[in-house]
């Protein structure tokens, strides 16, 4: 892996913008019961102009930031937080993927490794979509602040792996789920747009980490441990049992 380098992207520009995109995604999918996302989202309007693959977010940034808080709360909680047999569309990876052994452990290990510590109030749900997106935001931020190319590479590879192993792997399932339950609703559109951004950005990441050791012309490489994401409804190729073994 020593041959991997960052020469495939303009770090100073892309990391900062993607950092904003992930913050916006995280805010879009934060529970409006925990925090009113609208002021922050208003600040993000226009991101799509700068980041083409975030273009679909723009109208939603405007729509969510202009919506009644009560409406956001009702729609969000009815889809993601409460339901007679659990939330109709659980917004936690662990639940979307059938409480597979190791899912949350891996997420927590990523957070740990990069010094991202959840507050007590949120510690129980490290796999919440909004939290995972915030972690991506943090990794992009660190990439943007990187002292040198090797440092930046760490964060790029981590983003690619985290995104590939988690976000890009399970959010399509959530999007399909929400689409089935509440097609056309505000949050169905938000999840679809965020899923599209995650998938496209993941592909972009893979295409911009370049194996410097390869022949001239620098071949884009896929981080070794990233499961492939198949298109926009991608699923992780590992066939995990519905419920396997213990957590650590």
């Amino acid at each position: 892996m020593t041959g991997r380098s960052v020469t495939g992207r303009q770090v100073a520009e892309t990391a900062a913008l993607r950092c904003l995109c992930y913050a916006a995604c995280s805010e879009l999918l934060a529970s409006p019961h925990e925090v009113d996302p609208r002021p922050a989202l208003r600040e993000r309007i226009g991101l799509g102009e700068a980041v083409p693959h975030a273009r679909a977010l723009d109208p939603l940034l405007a729509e969510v930031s202009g919506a009644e808080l009560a409406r956001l709360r009702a729609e969000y909680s009815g889809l993601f937080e409460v339901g007679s047999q659990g939330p109709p569309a659980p917004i936690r990876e662990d639940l979307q993927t059938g409480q597979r052994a190791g899912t949350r452990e891996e997420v927590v290990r990523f957070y740990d490794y990069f010094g991202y510590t959840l507050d007590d109030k949120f510690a129980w749900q490290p796999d919440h979509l909004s939290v995972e997106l915030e972690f991506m935001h943090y990794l992009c931020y660190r990439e943007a602040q990187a002292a040198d190319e090797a440092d930046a590479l760490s964060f790029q590879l981590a983003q690619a792996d985290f995104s590939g192993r988690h976000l890009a792997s399970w959010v399509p399932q959530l999007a399909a789920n929400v689409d089935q339950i509440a097609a056309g609703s505000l949050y169905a559109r938000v999840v679809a747009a965020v899923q599209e951004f995650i998938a496209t950005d993941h592909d972009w990441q893979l295409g911009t980490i370049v194996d410097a050791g390869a022949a001239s012309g620098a071949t884009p490489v896929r981080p070794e441990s990233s499961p492939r994401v198949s298109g926009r409804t991608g699923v992780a190729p590992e066939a995990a049992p519905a419920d396997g073994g213990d957590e650590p």
Partner: protein
Amino acid sequence: MTGDRDQHVQITASRRVVLHGLAATAALSTRYGSVAAATADAGAAAPAYRRFEDVLRNKWTWDRVAHGTHGTNCAGTCAFNVYIRKGIVWREEQQGMYGASGADVPDYGPRGCQKGLRHARYMYGPQRILYPMKRVGGRGSGRWERVSWEDATNAIADKFLDLATTAGPECISYGSGTQMSVKLASSASLSRFANITGVTVPEFYSGVGDLPTGVYMTLGQVYTGDTMAAVFKSRCCLVWMSNPAVTRIPDAHFFWEAKYNGTKVIAISPEFTPTALHSNHWVNVRPGTDTALAMAMVDVILEEKLYDVPYISEQTDMPFLVRLDTREFLREEHLGIIGKLAVRENVYYLWDEATGAMVRAPGTGLAEKPVGRDRRRFETLDLGAIRPALEGRWKVRTLDGEVEVTTVFELLKQRAARHRPEAMAGVTGVSAAVIRKTARMFATAKPAMIYTGYAACKWQHGDLLQRAMLLMLSLTGNVGIEGGGIQFGNAPRVRGIGGFAAAGIGPALRMISGTTWDYDHANLKELNRRMYGDELADTYDRYYKESIREDWFPDYSGAGWRMAFFAGENGANWRAGSRQWRKEGFDRLEMIVVLAPDMGVTAHNADYILPIAHHYERADLMLQSRIPYIQVLDIAVPPLGESVDDWEANRRLAAAISRRAKERGLSAVHDEVDGRSVRRDYARTHDYYTMDGRIKSVKDVAQFIINTTPGIPKVSFAELAARGIIRVDHSGSSAWEHEESPYHHEIVESVREKKPYETFTGRQQFYVDHEWFIRFDEALPAHRAPLENQGFPLRMLMGHARHSIHSMWRDDPLLLSLQRGEPDVYVNPQDAAARGVADGDLIRIFNPAGEFFAQAHVSSGMQPGMIFSYHGWDPMQYRTGENFSAVVCTAGLIKPTTMAGDYGHLGYRPLAYAPNQTYRDFTCDFARADPDTGRRTVAA
């Protein structure tokens, strides 16, 4: 990468202007957590990351290991270590830190079961209730919205105040299930809340059919069990109406170790249970004929003179004289005018063979109503020189002239003779030879025990069965000795609970049997009429009303049932009159509030749901009789989401009631509880609840209980939390025998110290001469055939499941995968073949009460003529949203004698003497069903 995407994945220099404008605003913005300053700083050294495996290299360590258990009604209270990292419980592990009760007895640990070992995952599962919820669709539509605690409790408080200040708090029920009640501090919190607010508490013990009224009739106590080590000390153990291999997983080893130690373990059950599999013998009695079997064995014991004369002469009413003209006990009030005027109904007589004369029975006389505790202090059962006759007839002069008297023992012999093994073989399906052999094995072993479960209370005539079981034990001198007795669970005498409920405010708790509450408020007389005919419905109702008219039992029917709290109780899951109860009671409520950690059918139908902390998220105490340890529940992690423990949930309700009462300018109202006037100042509810702020958290409640309950070692809650378990006082032997232990010890004490029992006669009382008992020919126990629904040939039995504790963990995916993944009903192969049903087919189980659908589990372990369903399956797990209770139509069967009163110890005593809700006296049938049935009608 798709070609489509290739067109726009480039963030190019051509957009540089816009890009720079936004990039300048890029800043770290974290809402959920923080990052170490050193790592967040620009230019700080990054942890080198090259491949995913890097994050796995760091050794996984635990931030903390807490002590805990599962605060549910498994009676396990198993000590667990709970492993925490980063605010998450990842796993739990059994602790092996227990001792034993006696040098040669197996110890109590390690303890645990597969449900408990799933909890670290289950607590994060989709069924979890994490936020206050408000219904936004129709009831049961499944449409919810998360709301704030303040909004939810304000709305609840407003409804509460509307009703409490107009109709009275009596019309508001606060049902607490076992989830809450087995946790001492939670139970105390609820009791205090109910005591202050005046809500009615329909107690669950009789409400779920667990109250052993027959034991109470006989011993004046319901709590008669010892520790599990007592099983090991028995020499013959009848495991009857119980299936410990499935339901007592942490303790089942005591049975098998006893067996290898020479104890005869004999399982008595209609179906071939896992317990029967491991026992020395299995007696497969027909469903509902257990009393016939017990009385047949009583007959063998009497006929073959296998009884213990000194024991029954001293400890029981066997030698007491009974008038043959009225079938009443001979009492002092019958003998002279002074006795009659003084209503000396509590002085009984024996025939003394030493003097050839009638003598007053020692230990009778004093009898402070209703239970005669003064006798225990001042009198003795010691016969001294008296040699009571057990057999004979004598003439005695009374105020009614000369009457013939005999002994209870003589009457018992006559009663037993109606249950000869040969005659009962036809009833029970057990051959006379097996009945005799079993009776002899039992009667010749000492100590001998009957280990029974609450199934013995689930038949309408379960009281007769318990009395018959006690006859077997008592005749052979086995009640009240270590390794003997009837082993229902004991219950801790946690004085701190009542003390906390009433501290500073006095007792004003409105507690009622859940059975009578349902009878009044779900029009169960009509259910009786439809299921069992006019005669039974009218007769039972007449006695019911008479009991209330006579003031033997309280009347809480007047104000109606208009609002309900269900706390840790999934009441709509298991009601024995499901449809009727739903239609006539539950569905008509103006507001339903559920406090629970997990979703279930009751919550599904609620208007508001309040999220309650799960087992590892709360502080509390557990104390069960089967092991002599008090166990801590420590807060391993903060409650998930916005859930809170029960203390805090009730505090928030109390705060909202106070707040809204003040805002509405409500003044205090007067309420009457059991004839006493109580002033309810709802504006002060929170002050009262928190003792003016002195009680700050559930840990303070726990400490109050520790400090004020005898038998619990006086430690701080913090110390208990650090240690996990602490042995309770006076638990050296396997029997609860010491008054300073935290358990009921009275029966053992009566035998050892000859203290009168808390019964009308002061003895183990087998003869009950209350006029209703005589009228129903139940002065002594006898077999009564169970009721059935004509035209429906199959009897449905039920039992606790291996893979759930009631409805908790019932929906855990792994546990479901160890079963059939969906509700099933066990049927006999012949019955299945006769209906064209194969294993795995979908079947419809039906009777006049209703129907439900389940998978046929064809098993030769079932007798023909019976079907079996493990309980706990939630209606939400069935195709049509109805579970087994759709066909259970027994809720209105309030047996008249269980509401008898004005008779010494008989009369309403909450949690001791009240009618049980029973679950077995019905029949049904099944047929193959279309596999598509109900697939589309399952509740959302």
